[in-house]
C-alpha cells in the first residue's frame, strides 16, 4: 500500500503534500466496507467478519477495488456487529458471517439494500438506511467521536486523510505557546475526567511553574465501572489523543509525556503503541517535530488494576513505580508532580478535544454548551436501556433527552427509576429531575457529578439500597487505606447498608449513614474519599422511602434483596412447561408438568415449597410466561 515514502516529514509543506497524496490514493477505491471492531462488536464476532469479507470479496475479484476497513467503536454497541458501506453510508446491524456473501453480491456490487439487516426503529417501525437516520445517532453531535467510523485506528494515513495533525501544524506554525493557552482558555474547555477544572488555566500554571523538565500526562485509567468512552477513543482514534498531547506539550514547554492506561484495556495499549510508532516515523513525534525544532516523546504506562490510580497524585506515584497512594494537594501537581517536577495531567477525552479547538477556533467550541460548560460530552449509556452505547451530545442537553431520544427508553416496557451519573463518586437522579440540563455545576448541585460520564440507567427492578451497597463495597475495596475517614468510614457505611439489605436494619440507620457520609466527605484526603458518600447520600435524599421500606417493613420493593423477598407461582399464568422445575437447584418446585394423553391431558401448575426455596431466582429467570412472581 505505502508507495509514498514514510521518511520523516521535515516541514509543514511536506505534511500537506503527504496528506494530498493519501487523499488521491484513497479516492481510487470507490467502495469501503467499514467494520466496527470496538470491544463490543469484537465480542459479538466482528473479528471473524473481516476474514469472511476478505474471502467473499476475493471470490468476486473485488479485493483491489473495495477496501475493508476495521474501524474503532461506532458507539452503538447494542446492535453490533455494525457494518457501514461507503460511499452511500448504508448501515447494517447485527451482521453475521452468513450475511457477508449477500452483502457483497447485492450491496457492494449492485448497491441494493438488504432489508433485513437494516435497523428498525422500535417506536416508529421505520427502517434506517444510514447511520444518520438512526434515532440513536440522529440526536447526537459527534465531534470527538466524529472520525471513529471513518478511520482504521492502526493507520496514521487514515487519520491524515481526515485532516489529522492539521491542528498540530497550525499550532506550531501560527501560534506562540501563550496564544495557544489563551485560545484553550477562551474556548472554555474543562477537564472531562470529572473535576471540570479549566484546561487552559491548568496549562498556564504548569507553564509558569518553575522546574525542569516538565511532564505532560494523559489519564487513561478509566476506572469508573460503566464508563468506556476513553477506552473507545484510545482504541478507535489514538492519534487524536497524541495530537492533543503534542499541542499541549508545545504550549506548556514540555518534552516528555506519559499515557497511563488501565491494564484491563489491552487493545487501547496496542493501538496507542502503534500510533506512537507511526507518528515517530513521520516526525510528528520525537525529535524536531515537523522541522520546527520542538521535541516531544510519549511513553505508555500500564496500570495494574487499582481504581485510586485515576486520582492525579496516585497516578503519578504509580508511574514512578510505587504504590498508588494519593497525597494532599495543597501543593498543586502543576508545581510538584511526577518525579517532583511540574506536571500537567488531562484526561483522554480532554486531550482529544484539543486538536478540534485549535483547528476550528475557540469561538466555535464555546458556541456549544451552557454558560459554564462548553463543547460536547461523551456519555456511556448503559444498564436498563434499549440503546446501550456511547453517546456524544452538547453540554446542556437534558438527561431525559439522552435517555429517551438517544437511548430509546427502557426495555421490556419497564418503568424508569433512576439514573446513576458519575460512577462510584456520583449520585442517583430520580425521574422528577430528568429535565436537568447536563453541565458540571447543575449535576453537582443535585448531589451527583459529571465524573467521567457514565450514565447507568435503572428501572423499577433495581433496588437503590442494593446499588448504594454495591458502590460502597466497590469504594471500600478500592480505598487505598492511607487516610482514616475513608478507610474506616466506607467500611462502616458498607456494614450498615449490608445490614439493611439483609432485613436487619434499624430505624436510626439512615441518620447514621447521613452523618457518617458527611464526615467522610469533609475529612478524607483525596477525591475518592470526599466523593465516596455521594451514592449513599443521593439515594437517601431521593429514595428515602425505599430505605424505610427495607428497614421498617422488611421488604424490598424492587425484589432484589434476597432475604426480603419470596417467590411464588401464579397458577393461572403457569403453562406447566416444567422449565422452573428443571431450573430449581434444590428441588423446591413440585407440579409444573402435564399429565395424561390426548383430551384427558391436564396441567398441574407448579408450586414452590417456601421452606426449601433458597431464593436464587433460577425459576423466575427460567419462566417465559411471567408466572413466577416475586413479592
Amino acid at each position, binding site marked *: 500500500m505505502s508507495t509514498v515514502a514514510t521518511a520523516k516529514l521535515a516541514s509543514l509543506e511536506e505534511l500537506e503534500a503527504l496528506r494530498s497524496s493519501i487523499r488521491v490514493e484513497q479516492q481510487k477505491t470507490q467502495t469501503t466496507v467499514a467494520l466496527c471492531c470496538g470491544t463490543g462488536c469484537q465480542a459479538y464476532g466482528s473479528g471473524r467478519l473481516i476474514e469472511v469479507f476478505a474471502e467473499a470479496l476475493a471470490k468476486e475479484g473485488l479485493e483491489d477495488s473495495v477496501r475493508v476497513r476495521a474501524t474503532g467503536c461506532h458507539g452503538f454497541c447494542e446492535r453490533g456487529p455494525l457494518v457501514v458501506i461507503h460511499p452511500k453510508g448504508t448501515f447494517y446491524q447485527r451482521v453475521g458471517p452468513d450475511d457477508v456473501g449477500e452483502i457483497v453480491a447485492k450491496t457492494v456490487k449492485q448497491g441494493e439494500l438488504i432489508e433485513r439487516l437494516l435497523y428498525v426503529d422500535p417506536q416508529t417501525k421505520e427502517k434506517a438506511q444510514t447511520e444518520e437516520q438512526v434515532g440513536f445517532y440522529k440526536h447526537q453531535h459527534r465531534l470527538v467521536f466524529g472520525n471513529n467510523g471513518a478511520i482504521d485506528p492502526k493507520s496514521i494515513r487514515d487519520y491524515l486523510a481526515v485532516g489529522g495533525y492539521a491542528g498540530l501544524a497550525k499550532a506550531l506554525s501560527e501560534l506562540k505557546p501563550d496564544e495557544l493557552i489563551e485560545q484553550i482558555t477562551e474556548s472554555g474547555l474543562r477537564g472531562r475526567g470529572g473535576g471540570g477544572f479549566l484546561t487552559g488555566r491548568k496549562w498556564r500554571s504548569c507553564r509558569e511553574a518553575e522546574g525542569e523538565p516538565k511532564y505532560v500526562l494523559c489519564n487513561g485509567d478509566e*476506572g469508573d465501572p460503566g464508563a468506556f468512552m476513553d477506552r473507545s477513543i484510545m482504541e478507535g482514534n489514538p492519534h487524536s489523543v497524541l495530537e492533543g498531547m503534542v499541542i499541549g506539550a508545545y504550549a506548556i514547554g514540555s518534552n516528555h509525556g506519559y499515557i497511563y492506561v488501565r491494564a484491563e*484495556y489491552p487493545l487501547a495499549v496496542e493501538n496507542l503503541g502503534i500510533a506512537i510508532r507511526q507518528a515517530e516515523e513521520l516526525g510528528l513525534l520525537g525529535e524536531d517535530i515537523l522541522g520546527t525544532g520542538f521535541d516531544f516523546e510519549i511513553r505508555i504506562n500500564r496500570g495494574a488494576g487499582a481504581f485510586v490510580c485515576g486520582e492525579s497524585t496516585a497516578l503519578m506515584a504509580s508511574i514512578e513505580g510505587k504504590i498508588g497512594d494519593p497525597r494532599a494537594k495543597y501543593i498543586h501537581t502543576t508545581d510538584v508532580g511526577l518525579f517532583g517536577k511540574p506536571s500537567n495531567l488531562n484526561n483522554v477525552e480532554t486531550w482529544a478535544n484539543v486538536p478540534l479547538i485549535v483547528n476550528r477556533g475557540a469561538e466555535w467550541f464555546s458556541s456549544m454548551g451552557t454558560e459554564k460548560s462548553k463543547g460536547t460530552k461523551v456519555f456511556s449509556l448503559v444498564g436498563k436501556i434499549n440503546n446501550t452505547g456511547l453517546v456524544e451530545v452538547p453540554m446542556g442537553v437534558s438527561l431525559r433527552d439522552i435517555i429517551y431520544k438517544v437511548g430509546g427508553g427502557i426495555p421490556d416496557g419497564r418503568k424508569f427509576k433512576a439514573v446513576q451519573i458519575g460512577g462510584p463518586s456520583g449520585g442517583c437522579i430520580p425521574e422528577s429531575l430528568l429535565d436537568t440540563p447536563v453541565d458540571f455545576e447543575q449535576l453537582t448541585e443535585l448531589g451527583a457529578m459529571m465524573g467521567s460520564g457514565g450514565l447507568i440507567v435503572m428501572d423499577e427492578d433495581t433496588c437503590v439500597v442494593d446499588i448504594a451497597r454495591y458502590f460502597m463495597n466497590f469504594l471500600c475495596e478500592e480505598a487505598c487505606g492511607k487516610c482514616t475517614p475513608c478507610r474506616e468510614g466506607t467500611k462502616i457505611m458498607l456494614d450498615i447498608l449490608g445490614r439493611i439489605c439483609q432485613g436487619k436494619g434499624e430505624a436510626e440507620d439512615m441518620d447514621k449513614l447521613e452523618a457518617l457520609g458527611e464526615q467522610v466527605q469533609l475529612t478524607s484526603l483525596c477525591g475518592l474519599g470526599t466523593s465516596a458518600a455521594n451514592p449513599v447520600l443521593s439515594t437517601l435524599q431521593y429514595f428515602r422511602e425505599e430505605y424505610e421500606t427495607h428497614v421498617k417493613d422488611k421488604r424490598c420493593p424492587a425484589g432484589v434483596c434476597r432475604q426480603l423477598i419470596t417467590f411464588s407461582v401464579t397458577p393461572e399464568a403457569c403453562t406447566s412447561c416444567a422449565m422452573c422445575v428443571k431450573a430449581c437447584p434444590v428441588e423446591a418446585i413440585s407440579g409444573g408438568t402435564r399429565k395424561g394423553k390426548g383430551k384427558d391431558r391436564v396441567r398441574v401448575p407448579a408450586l414452590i415449597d417456601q421452606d426449601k426455596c433458597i431464593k436464587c431466582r433460577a425459576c423466575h429467570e427460567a419462566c417465559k410466561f411471567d408466572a413466577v412472581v416475586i413479592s
Partner: protein
Amino acid sequence: MEQNAAISSKDNICAEGKVESKDILRILESHNKDRGGLISILEEIQSEYGYLPEEALRIVSERTGRSLVDIYGVATFYRFFSLQAKGKHLICACLGTACHVRGAPRIVAELEQQLTIKAGQTTPDKEFTLETVNCLGACALGPVVVIDGHYFSKVRKSKVKQLLEQAGEGFDKFDIGKDERIFPIEVSCPHCNHSFKDKTFAIDGYPCLKINVATDHQQGWIRLSCLYGSYSVSTEFEIPEGMVVNFICPHCNSEIHSTSDCSQCGAPMIPMLVDGGGIVSICTRRGCKNHMLDLV
C-alpha cells in the same frame, strides 16, 4: 494472609514454570531506560509466568536496588498481580455497575457454586481460576464473562454450567451457535396445550407442524418441519422475506404472544411447548432462522 503464606513457601512457587534468571534479566534490560518502570517489569514477569514467582521478585530487588518489602508492597497493592500460580483456564466475571444491574452477582454466585471455589481462588485441580473485575467497558454485553480471552455476552445463570464444560474442553473444538444435531420434536400451544402436529402433510419425511399465521392483510396456515434444526416450511400464501407475522393457534384461535425478542433480528420470538417438557422459541420473521430449544 494467603499471599503471605505464598511468598514464604518456596515449594508452592517452584511447582510451576521454572524461573530462569536470564529471563528476568532480559525483562529488566528492556526497561532500564524507564524511570520507575517497576510496574511494567512486574507486568511482564506476570505475563511470562502467569503470576509473580518469589525468585523473580528477589532478582528484581537485587538488580533495581528496591527493597523486597517495597516490591512486595507494590505486588500486593495492585489487583492485577498475583503471588500464586493461576489455573489452566481463567474465568473473569465482570461486576461493573451495568453488569450488576443486569444480574451479574447471580452469575458470579453460580460460577462459585459450580466450581466450588470463591472468586479470587483456583480450583484444587488447578483447572480453573475465578476472578472478578470492576468493569471491562463492554457494558452493552452485560452480564459479561470472559473465559480464556473469549467474551460471552448476556450470560444467563442457566448457561453457566455449559460454558464451564466447554471451557474445560477448549473453545476451539466448539463452533458456538451452530448446532447441527437434527431430531424430531412435537410441540403444542402454550394456551390450550393442543398439539400442532399435522399428520396429513409431511415435510422432511415427518408429519409437519401446522399453525395459522396472519399478516396485516392476509391469513392462512404455515407448515413447519418438525425436525429441530431444519428450516423447511410451506405456506398457504406467500410471505415476503423479512416480514414479521403473527402466529395463531388453529385449535383455540388465540394469538401466541411473544415472550422475548430475537437476538439476531429483533423481531418477536414466540414460545411453543415441547412434549416431554420444555420450550422451543422461534423467530416470527420470515427468513430469520433464529430459534431456541430449552428441554427439561
